[in-house]
């Protein structure tokens, strides 16, 4: 679960070294993609984004634009030192690489074969699925003291109430001590769960105030 291969796009739209900027931009537009792996004799040799192509050519309205689009070829503007990821790497690793390097798409390479591409949209899709944000649920933000078993105790309150948990994540609380857990419970009426959690000493963060 949550591996690059679960989220990547397998039908990769690629481009060749000698294709023109005009051809590459047309491909981006037609296939609704922004990142093109550059392939030469079945080998990944570079990456080019629509942004690379645009910034290498004169702006719209510039009379020199049409000629430049025909003259510039992909090998002129592509990134050669490509950051790659493997299909069995965790999706959070792909997310972290993209964040660190400020890039929006990574080619997925198995051995020397290009097997897919993973973009920031794929990472967002994974986040939505992970959190169940597209599914009905009640979101409860619960303070979690730093002691072994607190997460299990909170989960037990959901279990005792018969409420299934759509998703759960926990992490450091921003601006507060300790940790916080976000539970998404499959119920329109989390009242009994909240009440029980408060009885056993947990804080459930509700809306600010009237």
């Amino acid at each position, binding site marked *: 679960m949550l591996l690059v291969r679960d989220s990547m796009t397998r039908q990769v739209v690629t481009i060749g070294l000698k294709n023109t900027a005009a051809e590459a931009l047309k491909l981006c537009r037609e296939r609704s993609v922004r990142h093109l792996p550059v392939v030469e004799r079945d080998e990944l040799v570079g990456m080019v984004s629509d942004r690379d192509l645009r910034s290498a050519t004169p702006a719209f309205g510039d009379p020199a634009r049409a000629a430049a689009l025909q003259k510039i070829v992909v090998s002129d503007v592509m990134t050669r030192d490509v950051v790659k990821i493997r299909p069995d790497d965790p999706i959070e690793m792909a997310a972290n690489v993209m964040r660190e390097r400020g890039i929006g798409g990574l080619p997925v390479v198995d051995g020397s074969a290009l097997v897919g591409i993973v973009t920031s949209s794929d990472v967002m899709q994974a986040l939505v699925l992970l959190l169940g*944000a*597209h*599914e*009905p*649920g*009640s*979101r409860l933000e619960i303070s979690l003291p730093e002691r072994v078993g607190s997460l299990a105790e909170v989960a037990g309150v959901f279990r005792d*109430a*018969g*409420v*299934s948990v759509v998703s759960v994540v926990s992490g450091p609380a921003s601006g507060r001590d300790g940790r916080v857990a976000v539970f*998404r419970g*499959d*119920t*329109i*009426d*989390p*009242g*009994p769960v909240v009440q029980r959690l408060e009885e056993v000493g947990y804080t459930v963060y*509700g*809306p*600010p*105030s*009237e």
Partner: protein
Amino acid sequence: MSGKAILVHDRELEKYGFGPDHPFNPLRIRMTLELCEAAGLLEGYDFTATESATESDLLTVHSLNYVRRVQQAGLGEGEPEDLVHYGIGTPDNPAVPGVHDAGAKISGAVLGACRMVMSGVADHAMCISGGLHHALRSKASGFCFYNDAGVAIARLKEEHPGIRIAYIDTDAHHGDGVQWMFYDDPEVLTISMHESGRYLFPGTGGVEELGRGAAAGYSVNVPLDPFTGTASWLECFEAVVPVALRAFGPDIIISQNGCDGHRLDPLTHLAATTRLYEEVPRRVHDLAHELCDGRWVATGGGGYDIWRVVPRAWTALWAVVSHQDLPEKVPESWIESRQAGSPVELPRLMRDDPADFPEGPRAAEIAGRNRRTVEAVERRVLPLI
């Protein structure tokens, strides 16, 4: 403005419920109709009964696998581990005897109400048992098994090719089930105004959920801040709903009139008063006359303060639907018959006294935040209709 009104109801519709300890209690339907009667608002209005929805009606928006599971649950059959996969047998949606029949009855009532309005038997119809807007194609959700509005819309589309249907949902919870059923359909406009999903079920219903493909713009969502009061709510309604409806040009309007956005409702964080539940139907009524010869079907929905809020809110709804004046006072006879069973003191006036519900200190801030939400809807969603 006028138009003939009918009240679609029969006692069978009061069987949809999950026991006295469950928030969704059909007693609220009974008490509402008793209040309507005590207030003299049922004189000349017989209850209009309808057929249950058939299996094929339900299959217009639900999967066969799901309908089979609801049928099993209603007969006390089926494996709990299997049913729970379909949202059945949870604390929200218990597998109670007869749940299929009761749910099909409600879908049939709302479908029947829509058919009578389309055929001209009536201009307006109310069915307060309807409004089960969370039911999904293959899942019971949020007390809802079958999506009555979804079934009615799907059938109307078959029976009247090219019909344009507007669905307006002012329940405190996002009208997710109906939205998703018609998310790709530009002939169905869904508008949902609800408490934002930040602290409330189902969590969806952001402005950017605006429909897909050719239907982009035809799912309108106005997520309101917690503690939104009547004034800000109505301001948002006025900014969005008439504009969206006029751009769309409906042939019929179906409204979901959940009243769980009231300040006293135990499940939500909104802060409306009964004025909202009088003003919203009035506006919907007038827009129906302006845009579609008055064709309007009003359903109920959520509402969990069943003593102080629901009977008054939906009596006010019926008064608008049937063009009658709401009395000032709650009839003594109704209070006498119901006070003993109530855990709280029943209200004396049909309309809340605003002095009992003063605005909170953050009211202006909340109204400002809602205004920015509406601006986003105006900028990004409404121009697409």
